[in-house]
Structure formats: C-alpha cells, structure tokens
C-alpha cells in the first residue's frame, strides 16, 4: 500500500492524458461524421499508403544512421573519466535546450541556395541543390534525434563492468572480438531503447519535411495535421494505423532483444 500511494498522480496523469486520448482516437477512427459505426475513415486512410510507407522508410533510414553514428560516440564516452563523461553528456544535451523548430530553421539557412554550405561547395566547383529533397529531410531528422540515440546507449554502456573487457582480452580476444562478444551483447538493451526513442518520434514527425523537403517529401505527420483541419475521423484512423505499425515493430524488436539475452 505504502508503495502504491505515491504513484497515484502518475496513474491519474496516464488515465487523463494517455488513455482518454487513445480512446478518443479509437472512437473517431471507427465512426463517421454522423457518429455511426463505420470503416469509411480507414478506407480513406489507405489512400495515403505511399506517404505512409515513405515516412516509415525515412524514419528507418534516419534511425539506422543515428545508430551507426551514436554507437562509437557512446562507447567512447562510457570509457572516459567520470568528470569527462559528465562534460560530454552536457555537450550532447546543449543543442536540445534550443527549440526544435529553431534548429530546423537554422538548417534551412545553412543549406539554402547561396547559403554558407552552398557557397563553400560552389568554390570547390560543386553545384547542387541541397534543400528540398529526401536527403535534407533525413539530415534534419538525424540531427534532431541523435541525442536520443546517444544517451540510452551511453547509459547502458557505462554500466558495463570494465573487468569483463579485461578478462576477455586476457583470455585472448582481440579488440574486434571484445566488441563483438562482450560489448555488443551487453549493449543490446541500449540499442533497443535508442531505436525506440528515435524511430517512434521520427516516423510521426511533422514540419521537418515541410521545411527541409520538397513537394515529394511530405510525411504522414504533415498529412495528419492537414486532415485534422476538416476531418477528425480520417486523421484519427491514420494516426491509429501508424501507432499499430510502430507497436508491432517494437514487439518484434523486443522479442529479438530477449532472444539475444537468452542466447548469452
């Protein structure tokens, strides 16, 4: 009993701000304008399948790049002295103190025609359109969500007992072997939570594509935003399908994680 009481505010919060909205989304998805039970919203939602798949693809690629970039950084951080670790963590956090939209604006300025990067490249004789394509969108996403990959990885890696690594080396494992057989398996929980924290928000993100992408890069988050202007039902249905897709992916991811852990 004593343990439960402090959790009441949290439970109340969950009920009011998580459960109720989800129930509302469910309600809207399965009804039409007149309030009748209907699957019309879903049939309309599937009209956006290509945007939907494109968003998942962009999110997937962004997550992968984040993972590849963040893994060595997190490992490096976790092997430093405690004071250096704190300093590095802060460096990772500082960009997040600034508003998300402002950071995207900054990228627009950096990448635009005759902007600093474009000017520099034209000096080298490279003339290319940096903004308004899928690569720019992925760049923006990676920039936005990289800290969310680094931090969980770092947290898990800094708990790895250094003696295990020493022991592996003593028993004849080379550096690659140590990484493959010791560090990687022990860091799987960090990888999973990192992927979760990057993939989920990036699949549903909006505005990034509107600012950095062109007319062909609109994402499902933008569609939901626009649809909600006039039609809550279709908007809810798309949101629900997105939630379901992410949920299934996370279940698979976690199963994979468990198996790995058992195999060890």
């Amino acid at each position, binding site marked *: 009993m004593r343990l439960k009481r402090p959790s009441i505010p949290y439970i109340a919060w969950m009920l009011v701000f998580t459960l109720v909205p989800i129930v509302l989304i469910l309600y809207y998805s399965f009804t039409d304008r007149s309030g009748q039970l209907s699957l019309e919203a879903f049939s309309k939602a599937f009209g956006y399948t290509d945007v939907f798949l494109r968003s998942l693809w962009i999110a997937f690629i962004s997550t992968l790049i984040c993972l590849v970039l963040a893994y060595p950084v997190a490992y490096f951080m976790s092997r430093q002295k405690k004071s250096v670790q704190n300093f590095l963590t802060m460096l990772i956090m500082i960009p997040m103190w600034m508003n998300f939209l402002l950071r995207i604006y900054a990228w627009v300025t950096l990448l635009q025609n005759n902007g600093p990067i474009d000017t520099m490249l034209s000096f080298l004789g490279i003339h290319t359109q940096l903004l308004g394509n899928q690569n720019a969108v992925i760049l923006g996403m990676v920039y936005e969500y990289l800290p969310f990959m680094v931090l969980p990885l770092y947290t898990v890696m800094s708990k790895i007992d250094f003696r295990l690594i020493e022991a592996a080396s003593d028993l004849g494992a080379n550096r690659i072997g140590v990484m493959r057989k010791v560090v990687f398996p022990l860091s799987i929980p960090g990888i999973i939570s990192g992927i979760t924290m990057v993939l989920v928000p990036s699949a549903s993100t909006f505005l990034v594509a509107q600012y950095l992408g062109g007319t062909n890069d609109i994402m499902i988050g933008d569609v939901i935003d626009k649809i909600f202007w*006039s039609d809550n039902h279709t908007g809810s249905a798309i949101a629900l399908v997105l939630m379901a897709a992410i949920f299934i992916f996370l279940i698979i991811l976690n199963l994979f994680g468990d198996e790995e852990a058992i195999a060890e």
Partner: protein
Amino acid sequence: MKKYLSILLSLVICAACATVFAGCGSGGYEGEINVYNWGEYVADGSEDYEDTVELFEKEYNIKVNYTTFETNEELYNILSSSNSAYDVIFPSDYMVEKLIAEDLVQKLDYSKIPNYDKIIDRFKNMQYDPKSEYTVPYSWNVTGLVYNKTMTDKKPDSWESLWDKDLEGSILQFNNSRDAYAIAMQLCKINPSTFTKAEVDKATKKLKEQRPLLKKYVMDQVFAEMENNQAAIAPYYAGDIYTMMTNNKDLVGVLPKDGSNLFVDNMCIPKNAQNVDGAHKFIDFMTSPEMSAANMNYITYASPVKGAEKFLDEDLKNSELVYPPDEYLDKCYTFHNIDDETYTYMQEQFVKVMS
C-alpha cells in the same frame, strides 16, 4: 554555505512567483476582456510602433487577455467545441457567415460603437453580414503575386504565371486549400466564392498540373523563400508582399489582371462573452482612425476606416498593392461559407494533391 544559498534562491523564486500572481489579480483594473486575434495582427509596441492594446488598457482601465490563432478553422474549433469565453474575436468573411449561421456570435449594439460611422461604405453591409448586425471590419486585403525580377525576364501579371514551365522548381503555392483552390478555380473560370464538388474536381486537376512545377507549398515560409531569393514567384496576401518588398528590393508585387480574392477580417462578439460592454469599448477603440492606422502601419494591411489615411505611413498609403484602385476591387470576389461536406472534400483533395 550551499544550503543557505539554496534557501535564498528558493525565497527569491517564491517572491517572483508571488509578484507574478499578484500581477495576475485584478491589479487595479475595473474589468477584463479576452481577445482572440490572428498572430502578429495588432501593433505591439515593438520598434517605433504604438502598443494599441496597452493604450486601450490605459484609456478604459480594462485588462486585456490577448491570445492568438493561426487559421479561421482553429478559431471555429475553439469557439464551437470548448466553453472558452472570448469577448472579442477576429474571424474572416466566410467564417463570419458560418458563425452567424451556427449562432455562435451575438448582435452588436452599434450605439456603443460610434466610430462605426467612419467605416468606408464599401465595407458596410457585406454579403456575409448583409444588414451589418454582427460585425465591424478590422482590416481588408487582396491576394496578389510576388516575383523576383532577377529570376525571370517576363513580367508576370496573371495567376497563369504560377503554371509557367520556364520557372519550374522555383514556384511557390499556398499551403492552404481555400486560397490554393481559389487561384486554380479562377483559371478554370469557376467562381471561388462558392462551388460544388464537381467544380472542386476541375480545380484539383489544375492543381495537379501545377505540382511538378512547384518548389513548395508554403504559408509563413514564403517570407524566407522570397526575401532570400530562394524562389522566383509566389501568391500571397498583398499586405505581406508589401513587407517582403521592403526587405528585398528585387521583389515586385503585382495585382493579377484576372482579379483576386478580397478578404475582410472583422471584430465580433461571441455568444458566450463575459464582458459584452468591455468588448464594445474595445471594438470602438480599435475602429478610431488613429488606432486603426497604428495597427495597419504595423501589419501593413488596409484599413477600412475613413480618416485613417492621415495617420498612415506615406509609402503604405500610396501603395497600389495594399490599396488597390476601386476599379480593381470591382473585379475581386469574397469567399462565401462552403457547406461542411464540400469543404471537407476540398481539403481532402488538396492533401491528395500535395502527398
């Protein structure tokens, strides 16, 4: 030492909170009104501009709680689905029609708004409020074209230029279904004031033809795109084009020869207003020539108030873009309210075009 410091700090924070809360109380005001306006739509005291809301507070000793919205639809959702109590709102023409039809706004007592006499006749008895019972116009404007003269040799003068293949990849379009469809409909010889689903389909086809030529669908981003020479041509609201032109001398604003959308933003009082008397005072105050001019100097839209020209910036007053001649206004149309079904259909088709 650290302990004392933290105690001291928490005391400071408490004191700060206390002052803030004290400020939130009546603070010597005789009443308060809740005003719900478009973002960036009132002179706010920055740079050399007046702070018209503060002037009102001083004049009448009424506190103004000022909040903003971005679209007419957002305003509608707030009014229709929550019991928030606003005293003054600023809907556009077609939204006024909808709000009146759904009984969400109340009739005004024009005897409490003596400045109403100064409204230019053209803006009285508009079709959305034919007997002038619910509205006092706040500002008006038309949609126009802006192009960068260093990026095209032609002199665009029609909406058709937004479909110009020579400008492929540097054309912008409204990221707002009603405005984008209005342009497409004009070119398809459909009246954008009011239309049917079949007419939406025709315009959709036109918009689909345009999409491969576009750089982007934009709203506020249009400022950065045009001012930084990132795009060659865009449709937007004339008052905003005027602002862009002051920030980039290569930009040219034109009124399309096809005519365009004349829109009027109005002040209204919602049905559930708490301080109806204060709301009338606010509306009257903002309709005086001085205050109207002060606000319009800031937002660079056109004032519907006679006598405001005396207080307007010289350049703004003489701009044909912001104050088109009467002959041009006669070629313009205003939006009517569209029934929910057609509106939803248009919005849906627009998202399809974009995605």
